[in-house]
């Protein structure tokens, strides 16, 4: 009887979870073994054919490479900047609330609004960056139209958008650190850098793990800006995995192939989360 009561309490949440998370994930996996059906040509079982097509798809490998560059460029930078900002605004400084707020502002803006803003930063000649560069006689550069700079431009914008969000977590963690430690370190004569390296940084590790997981997921999940800024161009130079899935599903109407790509994305994210939690978790806590 007690069990029934417990199950009843769980039911609403379970229905939502199953309906909107587990069932779609399983259905996606199932669909990836079938061909895309049209009214004229119904869907049929094709086994691993979609996965073979994926291995042969040069665009898939390119977007995967792009995504890894993008992750490598955004994750460490946004974490480092978030930590620095948090330590800075944790100190007593004039207009602290204002500084904190201005660091946090990019976070509350929707990504699409941010992208529209940065579109005009990056626009050649009339954009903010080129206008600023022109003051020093720099030549105009086609930031988003050049395959060698476009991905870096997206990374810079993403760091700007995300660092403030991660800063909040670090700020909360810093404020929960007991002040005695800092006083003790001061008495022992530890330098600021030494104190950060040996005390603050290790104590922040659980927060860093949390932020790392979030940053990793975001680097694969956040593609709103591509709709505004580049649409994945030029020639897929800025295309990311999730945006490619969108193109395959809703522009090419190849729902099965989109499912296949989704399965790969899910598997990658799951693997990364497991690695992060199992391996790093062991060394996260300060002993």
């Amino acid at each position, binding site marked *: 009887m007690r069990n029934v009561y417990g199950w009843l309490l769980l039911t609403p949440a379970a229905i939502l979870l199953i309906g909107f998370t587990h069932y779609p994930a399983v259905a996606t996996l199932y669909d990836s073994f079938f061909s895309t059906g049209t009214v004229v040509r119904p869907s049929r079982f094709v086994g691993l054919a979609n996965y073979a097509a994926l291995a042969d798809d040069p665009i898939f490998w390119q977007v995967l490479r792009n995504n890894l560059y993008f992750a490598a460029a955004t994750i460490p930078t946004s974490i480092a900047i978030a930590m620095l900002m948090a330590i800075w605004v944790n100190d007593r400084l004039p207009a602290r609330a204002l500084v904190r707020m201005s660091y946090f502002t990019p976070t509350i803006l929707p990504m699409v609004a941010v992208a529209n803003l940065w*579109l005009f930063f990056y626009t050649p000649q009339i954009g903010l960056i080129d206008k600023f560069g022109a003051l020093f006689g720099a030549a105009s550069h086609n930031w988003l139209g050049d395959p060698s700079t476009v991905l870096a431009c997206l990374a810079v914008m993403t760091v700007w958008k995300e660092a403030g969000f991660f800063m909040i977590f670090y700020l909360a963690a810093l404020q929960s650190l007991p002040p005695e430690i800092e006083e003790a370190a001061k008495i022992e004569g530890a330098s600021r850098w030494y104190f950060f390296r040996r005390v603050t940084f290790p104590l922040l590790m659980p927060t860093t793990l949390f932020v790392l997981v979030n940053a990793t997921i975001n680097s694969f999940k956040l593609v709103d800006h591509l709709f*505004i800024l580049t649409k994945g161009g030029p020639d897929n130079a800025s295309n990311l995995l999730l945006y490619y899935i969108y193109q395959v599903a809703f522009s090419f109407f190849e729902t099965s192939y989109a499912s296949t790509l989704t399965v790969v994305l899910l598997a990658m994210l799951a693997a990364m989360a497991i690695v992060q939690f199992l391996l790093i978790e062991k060394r996260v806590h300060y002993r």
Partner: protein
Amino acid sequence: MRKVLAAFAAALIGFAQAAWADTEITFYYPIAVGGPLTKVIDGYAAEFEKANPGVKVKPIYAGNYDDARIKALAALKAGQPAQISVLFSIDIYELLEQDVIMAWDDVATTAEDKAWLKSFYPALMMNGTYKGKAYGIPFQRSTIVMYWNKDAFKEAGLDPEKAPANWNEMTQMAGKLVKKDASGNVQRWGVMVPSTGYAYWMFQAFARQNGQDLMNRDGNKTNYDHPDVIAALQYWRDLGAKHKVMPEGTVEWGTLRQAFTEGKTAIMWHTTGNLTAVKGTAKFPFGVAMLPASKQRGSPTGGGNFYLFKKTTPEERKAALAFVKFMTAPERAADWSMATGYVGISPASYDTPKLKAYAAEFPPAVVARDQFQYATPELSTFQTGRVRKLLDDAIQASLTGQKQPADALKGAQAEAEKLLKPYR
């Protein structure tokens, strides 16, 4: 007894009228340009309902073209009512493959209806026609035109009233229009053609001007690797790489209008849909002309058509036909064209007094019409999303100098062949 019968008959008639009154037309439509256009559409629907008691029209705004297609198809799949929709003109093959649309010829059977089907510009019917039958009725349609800055022309010593008429003139004039500062940095470019988002559309203009269409009329073969098509892409690339009159790399579609109105480029190619916005923001006199010619003039059409869905009752089809006829009537087409910058869809719409008066006061409004004789349908094939992206990627790879135009286009053609073979 007779009274009872009469009452019964009256009740029957009333019932029949009630059934007619129940005819409801639901239609999805996208909006791809600025302005409070949902209000305009709602206004048209209300007007139609007033003129046709017994038919209810329910317009549903559905986002951009992609969203509208997804929503309309999802509604049909879920059994929600949708009798007609405005969808991208180039979605026709996808909709045919899904087997959800039917030809307007099959419902427009009276002599008057047939005349109506013939009342539009033939250039606008090309994207909506498959195997001789009309599946798409033009509604919000656009085309590419050339905008030029008359002040910049004057400054460069050119005749401000004369736009370049062919590629050679455009290259030469653009060369004179480039303005550099003391340290050699470009202050103003000669010409810009956007190459993000709708690169294939712009390229169709180049290819057509060089005498080629990019696909056949059955939508199952592309023509990407024809020598004249390759030459067309080479010319586009040369504008930036060789003649240095356009920035190298890709030119962003979304910010090009500002670049033009801020005087950063003297000439731009852009959709007629921007006409009203440029008119509102440019602080200098500007002209609008047909795109220049190589072997001939040419520009693709674009935009949205009315489609009729198969899953409809005969009454609904009749009401839908009446509604679409109402929406495309010359008076309304003229009104819609002035509100949006979309082209008038029939010669008759340009003969209405209000559009005539508008054109007299603002001549650029009719350039698109005059260009129709050189128009070509927008790129649309079976598997259209993929086939189009192959071309987009090839164009961008060439413009950014990663591939030679010939290699890029031959590669795209080979891939497109693989996709389209099953449809022949």
